[in-house]
């Protein structure tokens, strides 16, 4: 299941895993803003920067490319639609590659950070603004991320069951779609109840504060990112 998931953490010991999740999140957001705000050749150069942490930390680039196959197809379709729309080749390529770079940077974040960690450290940061509700929001993020494999699992299970009873989507397409969706929802709601019971039985408290620390490298990275953003936008 983990192999077909885009948001999953791989346990490893490299420079990326040692940063505070908020620092990584901030850098990813800043990077996405930079890539989205640039055009043409500038965007291509910025997109290539995402390879620095991959090569620097010796991350499995081939594996990332394999898992990003769906996004590569999407990026190619995006670029093609821009070419057909009359944009220049560099401009069209930069849209697709920029999109891939943003996806890739998010992949680096999720691969090097446990979803629980990112949700909790974000909760801690936001709790200074919105109080205890921030931890509930963090828990919500955590549960949402953990729900995605459950959805895939349920959908595949229902598809297998339909295949086993030789049900065809083409005989009554709308009716079949509705029946399929109802089955998936019914299965998901059953799993939601089991999930709720599992959480409840552990006396789970969504509003509990869980601390996460910042180190000097985090402060340096955040400062450097702000400087890059200021320089980029002041030059424009």
């Amino acid at each position, binding site marked *: 299941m983990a192999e077909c998931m*885009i*948001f999953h953490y791989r346990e490893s010991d490299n420079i990326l895993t040692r940063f505070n999740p908020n620092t990584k*999140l901030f850098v*990813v*957001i800043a990077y*996405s*803003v930079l*890539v*989205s*705000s640039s055009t043409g050749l500038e965007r291509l150069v910025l997109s290539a920067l995402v390879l620095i942490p991959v090569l620097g930390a010796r991350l499995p680039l081939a594996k990332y490319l394999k898992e990003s196959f*769906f996004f590569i197809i*999407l990026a190619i*379709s*995006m670029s093609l*639609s821009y070419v057909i*729309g009359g944009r220049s080749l560099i401009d069209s390529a930069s849209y697709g590659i920029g*999109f891939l770079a*943003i*996806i890739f940077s*998010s992949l680096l*974040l*999720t691969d090097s950070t446990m979803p629980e960690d990112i949700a909790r450290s*974000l909760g801690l940061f936001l709790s200074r603004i919105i109080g205890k509700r921030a931890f*509930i*929001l963090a*828990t*919500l*993020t955590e*549960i*949402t*991320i*953990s*729900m*995605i494999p*459950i*959805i*895939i699992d349920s959908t595949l299970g229902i598809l297998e069951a339909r295949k086993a009873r030789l049900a065809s989507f083409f005989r009554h397409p*709308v*009716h079949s*779609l*509705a029946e399929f*969706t*109802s089955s998936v*929802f*019914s299965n*998901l*709601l059953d799993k*939601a*109840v089991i*999930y*709720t*019971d599992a*959480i*409840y039985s552990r006396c*789970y*408290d*969504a*509003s509990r504060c869980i601390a996460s620390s910042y180190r000097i490298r985090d402060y340096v990275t955040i400062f450097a990112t702000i400087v890059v953003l200021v320089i980029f936008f002041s030059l424009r």
Partner: protein
Amino acid sequence: MERKQILKLVLVALFTALITAGAYIKIPVGPVPVSLCTFFVNLTASCLPLPLALATVLAYLFLGIIGLPVFTSGGGLAALMGPTGGYLVGYIPSALFGALVMKLLGKNIRIASFLSAVVSTAFFYVVGLPWLSLTLDLPLSGTLGAGLFPFIFGDVLKIIVATLVTPSVRSRVTELLECEE
């Protein structure tokens, strides 16, 4: 934390995850791709009570704003401010008014489901089309050509399926929430 509160949290998370999954099932057609997001927003509005439906779309937008690639156009504020941003912001009134229709006409579930899906769908365009026109500087014909006409067939299909699915899902959700009363 009470079990009912956890159940509500899990339901919101489940529907948020469904909208996220819907964003990945897309066909790129011009600046606005066809995706299943709107179908799941329709179902969120028609199957969840109003506060939970609203919480679901807000949670989805929050996940996107903090940078997770949950939107059809990726993630982050840049994606929200892009040409498809209006459709994303439109999820809020869509869920709000769709759920409101269910609350007001809930006794006749079939009609309520149909109207809720229609109202939800209409609000995507009420917010999405002017935004698309402003960001891409398109005339009215261009805006409708890029942001409405390619989606009509898909939206009609989504409305039909949502209308058929809502009664069973809503009754199950209501049953789950009432069990806790």
